[in-house]
């Protein structure tokens, strides 16, 4: 019969909605309240030093809204006013300098879109399929348009003549929070594309992402993107801080560990269908979609397999891949209602191909914790539900 939603007069078509200013800064409508960051409580001792996950299974496009972009804090998200903000450059520079926030606004600035991925993203999956949802397996990532000053501009303002030969020099960066999360960055990267950013997606950074100023280290692990950035020191060597020795190092099968594994390898994941985004419409037209990214540059191709890697089809990129930014891919297909073992495989402009978990384990063993960029498999069942699995 006729649809009452069409044939009957609805309240929303007869009454009035909210006036302007009902929400001076808007939140998503209540019907979307399941699209939120979530954490895995058993992962860490305390939410103050923990991580949560971007709901990538429910987003589309490539830009991550700040309000649901994953958070990682080491000593909690602090409140630091612009007026109280100071940025120091010291060490091997001609003149150690202090900048206020207002000073930073007077330097020439740039806009760049970059992904930020935690080195531990997918880390819980090394030893086996564990968490059932793209949000939990791959949600330690976000992708924003940053407004900021090239770090090299600030280093040049302080003067690098005092540093002598720059080839073996480093930059040590730290935050204003209690963890300070100091990290060492080689000078060539510091002078290449690192930004001192104060806006994301057009608005001020959120508290949880380092308001008022954070570092953006394109393509490199998220831990280096120091939040509440307060100090930049030019040094002779790497400081070898806690977060670059005891953490964020990759232990191989023989017990030795890789350090300075900064670049995030090319990676992709099908975000829908996936365990949190099952197929509800039955067989027929189906949009398979996901995200791909590479710390080495632009994504050039994404292939999708429905049979666990036996055969592959090349997906459609929504836009040409951008340097060190998320790329959205689509496979517009027809589902026959049968089981699928869905996988995606990214390639970047250097020719790197996202490996299988088996290939990674052959080189790295199962204890790496960090930098797991393996191909992910979702088992989509005839009822449309999906599960995180591993395949032979």
């Amino acid at each position, binding site marked *: 019969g006729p649809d009452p939603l069409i044939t009957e007069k609805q309240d929303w078509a007869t009454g009035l909605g909210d006036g302007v200013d009902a929400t001076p800064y808007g939140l998503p409508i209540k019907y979307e309240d399941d699209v939120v960051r979530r954490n895995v409580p058993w*992962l860490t001792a305390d939410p103050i030093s923990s991580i949560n996950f971007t709901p990538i299974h429910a987003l589309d496009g490539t830009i991550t809204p700040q309000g649901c972009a994953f958070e990682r804090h080491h000593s909690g998200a602090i409140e630091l006013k612009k007026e109280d903000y100071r940025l120091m450059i010291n060490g091997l520079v001609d003149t150690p300098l202090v900048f206020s926030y207002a000073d930073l606004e007077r330097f020439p600035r740039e806009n760049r879109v970059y992904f930020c991925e935690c080195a531990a993203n997918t880390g819980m999956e090394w030893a086996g399929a564990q968490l059932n949802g793209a949000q939990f397996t791959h949600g330690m990532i976000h992708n924003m348009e940053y407004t900021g000053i090239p770090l090299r501009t600030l280093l040049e303002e302080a003067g690098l003549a005092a540093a002598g030969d720059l080839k073996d020099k480093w930059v040590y960066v730290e935050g204003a929070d209690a963890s300070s999360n100091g990290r060492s960055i*080689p000078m060539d990267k510091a002078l290449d594309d690192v930004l001192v950013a104060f806006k994301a997606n057009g608005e001020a950074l959120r508290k949880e992402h380092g308001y008022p100023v954070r570092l953006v280290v394109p393509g490199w692990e998220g831990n280096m993107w120091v939040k509440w950035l307060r100090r930049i020191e030019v040094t002779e060597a790497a400081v070898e801080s806690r977060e670059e020795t005891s953490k964020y190092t990759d232990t191989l099968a023989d017990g030795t560990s890789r350090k300075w594994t900064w670049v995030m390898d090319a990676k992709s994941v099908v975000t829908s269908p996936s365990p949190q985004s099952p197929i509800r419409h039955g067989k027929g037209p189906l949009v398979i979609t996901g995200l791909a990214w590479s710390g080495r540059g632009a994504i050039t191709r994404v292939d999708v397999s429905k049979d666990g890697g036996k055969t592959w089809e090349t997906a459609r990129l929504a836009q040409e891949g951008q340097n060190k930014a998320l790329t959205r891919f689509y496979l517009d297909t027809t589902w026959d209602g049968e089981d699928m073992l869905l996988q995606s495989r990214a390639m970047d402009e250097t020719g790197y191909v996202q490996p299988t978990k088996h290939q990674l384990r052959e080189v790295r063993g199962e204890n790496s914790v960090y930098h797991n960029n393996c191909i992910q498999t979702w088992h989509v069942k005839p009822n449309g539900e999906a599960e995180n699995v591993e395949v032979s």
Partner: protein
Amino acid sequence: AANASVDYPEVAVTHQKSAPVAAADAPAPQDEADAPVRLAEAHQARTTASDASHITVPTTMPEVSTEAGRFGLGRAALPEEVAAWNHDIMPDGSNLPVGSGDVWTGDEVFAEHCASCHGDFAEGRDNWPKLAGGQGTLADKDPLKTVGSYWPYLSTTFDYIRRSMPFGNAQSLSDDDVYAITAYILYSNDLVDDDFVLSNETFMDVEMPNAEGFIVDDRETTEAHFWAEPCMENCKGSVEITMRASVLDVTPDEGEDTATSEETGPPVEEQAAAPQAEPVQQAAAEEAAPEAQAGASIDMALAAEGEGVFKKCKSCHQVGDGAKNRTGPMLNGVVGATIGQVEGFKYSNDMAALGEAGRSWTAEDLNAFLEKPKDFLKKTKMSFAGLRKEEDRLAVIEYLKTFQ
């Protein structure tokens, strides 16, 4: 969109040419002109996949402007300002402050400031990091990474304790206390004897067992085979599912909207390594509820939950028969009692003053204090960061009510 994919070369040189620079002049056209060069390099890399030309880090150092102070922005940092923030200790021990501390002093300081999370013997509590043990386990299935088994440089330990610990009260320790704690952690790892004194002079004498255990990122060579044209058809024979996430069932419950939540329970112990720590062991909630002493006004189920939460408080506070003051005052009868009046405990002046003004620990005040102690009273001696969850605070207050 055109310049979003452009790498960032040579801007300083551009500025030099067009000085004086106004903000609107930045990104100069030269940026865009460089883009095809970068792309061409990338294409070349793709065709010569077996060598190291796909390296991400630029192999040539970008040129740097020699014209310092071009914008004249910022001000010179004063020496005392640099000294106040410049704390990093290098692996060779440079920048260490003058000072010293011995193992036994470290034992006491550690018990007071560190043991509530890291355990009396640095063995770790709940999910908090273990600082001792694990030597020889790095090639095992689940390696135990501690200061003794994993950390390559002692400077890292000293630097981190001095800048970031104790959790919730960072930078409160004297340099001598940091030396002492570091000495105690070394002792807990059997790396020094009990008469050892760590100082800026003995610092470099300590040998860290895993100092040689690290190699610099070698993915470009050991994983060079990942740069290869991939298979598209007949890539495998049969495909079998070898593992399912539902077997472990450790995904947080999301409600009925998803397909993940049939059976929930505590995570099993043999699951994969988490980024930071092992899964929580759910002992707390199972412990027996405390004996009822104050009758019907106490929600015993909530109090039982509070007993679990109170584990966080136990290293500093005692309750029950024979409770004594330790780092913090004993807490028998605290709910409703006058603030700052436990006999024999030395409160901060401000805390004592609240009690002298006649204020008592109402449930509201306790709730506020436990949420963020230093917001409630800036100069409280309690270094605990606070209980973020309202439910935890209410539970622990209910638990304290059982000790009237």
